[in-house]
């Protein structure tokens, strides 16, 4: 028989693991847990009862139930690049940054790998190395650790994260605006599978290792975006002479105009325009202009110079969508 205690409450006890209670339990959202109780620890439960059967108060203890907490295998990977990382055709040492977090409750090693050919992009970056950060969050091949699968799979405590750098080469064939995706995959060394799968005795502390909600593997994608620029040069010439005509007679002046147009989402650096003075013509001293501004013939602070055989105008870095106009004059000998 079941004795229901009276007082404060009506005691319908366990068999009333009732429909209402079950429904309430089902309605609870399944929360993502932080790492939680460490694998290998013991949960011990003992209850006590005190009572008086006529001889004064007596206290007895129940049996003790000990539960060994098993290891939950969970890992997440997150791209740390807030936006696509700019790259250029043929560039090497291009870096994507990820963080790998052990969401399980035991210390665990994780195998890292990359996927660059999953599609959904314009090209496949060529992954050359994976590096494990030394803790400063900044990629430096000299101080970060080159990753070799199976040799130095990062070991993470519960809730610990590590920054991982994926280094890739951009193929030379890509063009401006192309996007290349690389995913980093981290898998628990102990094993992966469907949530709830377990590996007997392989958990930290001697318990089982149980695959958590992440499947014990995690992945996230980062992307490169090709930011290239092309330069187009258009040269034109106008002849003037003392006759007021456009005839190229001796003594006539030729005004050359060179327009450099940069197109694309990137920019070009170190752009310079050089043009040899044609035979049978003579350079008109001090005639170089850039954007309508006169340039001296000397190599000095301004962009233009003339060295006796050619003019040169150093334009430096020019972003896509911009133009630069250079002019100079010669006379026909």
């Amino acid at each position, binding site marked *: *028989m*079941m*004795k*229901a*205690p*009276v*007082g*404060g*409450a*009506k*005691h*319908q*006890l*366990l*068999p*009333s*693991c*009732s429909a209402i*209670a*079950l429904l*309430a*339990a*089902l309605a609870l959202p399944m*929360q993502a*847990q932080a790492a*939680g*109780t460490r*694998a290998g*620890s013991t*949960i011990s*439960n*003992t*209850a*006590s*009862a*005190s*009572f*008086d*059967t*006529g001889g004064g*108060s*007596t206290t*007895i*203890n*129940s*049996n*003790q*139930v000990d*539960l*060994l*907490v*098993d*290891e*939950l295998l969970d890992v997440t990977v997150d791209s740390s690049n807030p936006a696509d990382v700019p790259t250029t055709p043929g560039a090497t040492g291009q870096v994507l940054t990820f963080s790998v977090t052990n969401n399980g*409750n035991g210390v665990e090693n994780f195998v890292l790998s990359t996927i660059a050919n999953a599609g959904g992009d314009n090209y496949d970056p060529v992954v050359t190395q994976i590096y494990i950060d030394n803790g400063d969050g900044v990629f430096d091949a000299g101080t970060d650790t080159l990753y070799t699968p199976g040799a130095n799979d990062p070991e993470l405590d519960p809730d610990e994260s590590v920054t991982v750098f994926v280094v890739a080469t951009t193929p030379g064939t890509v063009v401006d605006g192309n996007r290349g995706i690389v995913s980093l995959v981290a898998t628990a060394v102990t094993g992966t599978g469907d949530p709830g799968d*377990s590996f007997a005795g392989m958990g930290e502390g001697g*318990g*089982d290792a*149980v695959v*958590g909600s992440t499947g014990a593997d995690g992945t996230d994608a980062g992307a490169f975006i090709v930011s290239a620029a092309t330069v187009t040069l258009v040269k034109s010439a106008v002849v003037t002479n003392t006759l007021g005509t456009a005839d190229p007679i001796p003594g006539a002046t030729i005004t050359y105009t060179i327009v450099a147009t940069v197109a694309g989402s990137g920019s070009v650096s170190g752009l310079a325009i050089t043009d040899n003075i044609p035979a049978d013509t003579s350079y008109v001293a001090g005639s170089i202009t850039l954007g309508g501004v006169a340039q001296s013939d000397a190599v000095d602070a301004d962009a233009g110079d003339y060295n006796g055989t050619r003019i040169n105008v150093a334009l430096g870095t020019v972003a896509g969508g911009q133009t630069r106009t250079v002019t100079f004059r010669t006379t026909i000998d």
Partner: protein
Amino acid sequence: MRTALFLLFAALLPGQALAANQVALANDVFVERVSTDAQGKQRILLEEPKVVVPGDRLVFVLNYRNAGAQPADKFVITNPLPAAVRFADAGDTRPLVSIDGGRDWGQLDQLTVTMADGTRRAAQPDDVTHIRWAFQKPIPAGASGKLMFRGVVK
């Protein structure tokens, strides 16, 4: 299916290891799992705690039995909550709880927690440290019963 079995067992088993004074308290712990069958219908199973991981729901079952010849008066059962377990509920057994290590007791909805800034907030299941059932009538000789509560492995 297994649920029913376990519940049946739990209900039928007499308190283990009867003490000399003939009042016994037995403690069993089960893991509550939700399984979904092919029809998408969810079932709750109580399983033996062979595998326990953070987030699991544990069902603590306390069986008491007065096998002596005298009624047991002032019968109080106290269960300190294991530190790694967050109290969830006690079904409809409405126990007293403590949120301060067993000093003060009350219904959970009557207790408050003092915050660092001096304000008070209502106690939450998270705050519970002990659970207690105080019986107002003696347990007659030969009588037995069962109490339960649920907790989540932190």
